[in-house]
């Protein structure tokens, strides 16, 4: 795996407000970090490039937070679809048992609602996967999530106490991993699901290294 040629953080923190010139300079540093992560993506067996460079057609971010969003793997859609189908079936089975087994006449509405919700979730599953993105900025990690209720969280590197990698059953088959970040504030709640295994491991290693260089007190 290639390593980033330089770590961001060499620029001073003098200016409080990021003006346009400063921001592009800092994004140049961050871009070197991201460039390394993309080259790691290509090392994956199979050779197929995992992600397009996120440009205007990247993450459907409604707010203007910069355009350099990294997306999660395409195959995360499969995880979402399988999860929706499983829960939809479970709900439908419960409803059917109530309707036919116990004879509650109104339970067919539960079944219908469950099926409708499952179909709706299946339809928007690609958009849901598309809406997750992250940016490695100079001092923090910016994370975006959601279609209707969008949520952006900026977590400075030095504030990360813990980085978890979790793999669900479907994720293990598809070689996908979920990254979860823990800070001292329980309300932060940031996670990047659906990353490819190598990307997740590389991102975690780099974030741990960055967190160590920025480590401050609580």
């Amino acid at each position, binding site marked *: 795996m290639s390593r980033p040629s330089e770590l961001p953080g060499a620029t001073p*923190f*003098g*200016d*409080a*407000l*990021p003006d346009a010139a400063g921001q592009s300079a800092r994004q140049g540093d961050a871009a070197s970090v991201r460039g390394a992560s993309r080259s790691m993506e290509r090392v994956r067996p199979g050779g197929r490039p995992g992600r397009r460079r996120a440009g205007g057609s990247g993450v459907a971010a*409604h*707010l*203007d*937070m910069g355009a350099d969003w990294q997306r999660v793997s395409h195959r995360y859609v499969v995880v979402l679809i399988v999860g929706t189908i499983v829960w939809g079936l479970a709900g439908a089975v419960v409803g059917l048992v109530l309707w036919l087994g116990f004879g509650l006449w109104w339970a067919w509405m539960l079944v219908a609602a469950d099926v409708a919700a499952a179909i709706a979730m299946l339809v928007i599953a690609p958009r849901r996967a598309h809406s997750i993105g992250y940016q490695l*900025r100079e*001092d*923090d990690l910016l994370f975006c999530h959601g279609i*209707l*209720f*969008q*949520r*952006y*969280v*900026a*977590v*400075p590197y*030095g*504030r990360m106490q813990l980085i978890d990698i979790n793999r669900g059953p479907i994720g293990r088959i598809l070689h996908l991993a979920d990254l979860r970040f823990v*800070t*001292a*504030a*329980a*309300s*932060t709640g*940031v996670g990047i699901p659906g990353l490819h295994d190598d990307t997740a491991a590389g991102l975690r290693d780099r974030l741990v290294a960055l967190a160590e260089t*920025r480590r*401050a*007190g*609580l």
Partner: protein
Amino acid sequence: MGDPGAVPAGVEAADGRWHRLHPATPLLRGGVGILAVLGVIAANLRERITDLAMTMVGVRGVPDDDSGDPVSALVRHGLVGWAILAAFALLFLALGIFYLSWRMHTFRVGDDAVEVRRGILSRHHRNARLDRIQGVNLSKPLFARLFGTAKLEVSVAGQDANVELAYLGVAVATGLRREILRRASGTRRLAAASRPAAAGTDLFTRRLDDFLAPHYDPDAPPPTSAVVIPPLRLFGSIIVSGLSIALVIVIAVVSVAAAHGVYVILVILLPTILAWGGVYVRRFVRAINYSIVGTADGLRIGYGLFSTSNETIPPGRIHALEVVQPLIWRPFDWWQIRIDTAGRLKDKGVAGQHNTTILPVGDPAAIEKVLGIVLPTLADERTVGIVTAGMHETGAAAFARQRETTMPARGEKGPEAGSEAATSAEGTPAVDPSPTPFTVPPRRAAWLRPLSWRRVGYVVAGGAVLVRTGAIWRRLRVVPLARLQSTEVRQGPVRRGLRLVRVRLHTVDGPVRAELPVIGVEEGIRFFRGIAAAQAAAVAADHSDRWAAS
């Protein structure tokens, strides 16, 4: 004790060797249990004793043995001697266990950490690093004060992670607190030798002094600043509170029902009323002797008359502050301060509130003083007006000033300059600070916050973010930039339609929730970006984990 060459008790206890607690500890910790057992025995014997007394006085004849309680069963079978023997054996066993647990309970204060070992069957060993402590609490429950002991609790970040040294002698505990804070501060000063106690003071005089002035620490340097709360205001604030309103309503309901002859409600609600009366008494008792002082080792909060408590919070351990005014206090202009801190004590704090309430009631001068102790950069003459504006400026005034800023006179400052002043992290405004320092949301925010939209606002000043919300319950939240964890921007479909966002500042868990519920999209994104940069600078410049290391 009067020997000038003697090593002070606290320094001796902190010499890195294992020490035991005060010998009276088993009685103080287990004493309540013994009293409970005695109470049960007395309850069982009550009938017997009253019958015996009546017989001796001659009121009644010999009672019959049909009462059926265990004591009469024992008497019937002639087992009284064995019962007494068993009682004594249990007593000795209990004393033996207490003695053993006292011997096994030791502590050690080294240069880096406080360690405690305890337990007879299952051993516990707790280790707390001194440079990670969040606060030190010296409390003296009533029962312990009779023996001249105190409890020292070192709070550490985390759930149920505190190191508790209960009970130590008062001199040892005070000296140990000083030593722990000195080592946690990273100073290179040697431990100052304390002045010895005046020669010839006997036990009774020392106890009396301790009772009358429990927070007096003769070795502490003079405090840098103190906030005095008049007792009348403290008691007034306990009376004028939400609990009183509920009590008045309940009493009114009960009286109306009783007037109509419905007495069952009185029976149901009487225990509740009595319990609330107990809450008042507890709050009064805990609010006496309240003091809040800024020392070199941080904020020191003390309260209590019978059972006292004295908590020290070192600098940099307060993660967020909230200055709040309930509607019922608005005529008196009283405010309350609550904080977020990583270490949490188990007991309730001042005036029976949670121990995250550091100032139960204060007038604006007291609030500014406390903010000045916690965040000295906020007490600057440039920034002191911001706190006042944060507390008292009404929505209409804020909105009028914002309009003045955005619709300037000809050829003068424009809107960029005004908002530059608002978001400048150094607190040096580019323009005259008389326009409201708080950046308020646009008019369309009234759809979501019809009453308070003009008061919602933020400003970055003095190394902290101040967020103002609320029209009925006025709140001002202060988050030091060096303690901010992460920032969040949320936008749901309603806010997207109104071109607003919700910005939230994450800090460690606590009662303070620093959130801007509504702000314009451009303003919100500018805030989001500005915070990211200013936070990095503040964290790099922050050295408060070792506050006295030069």
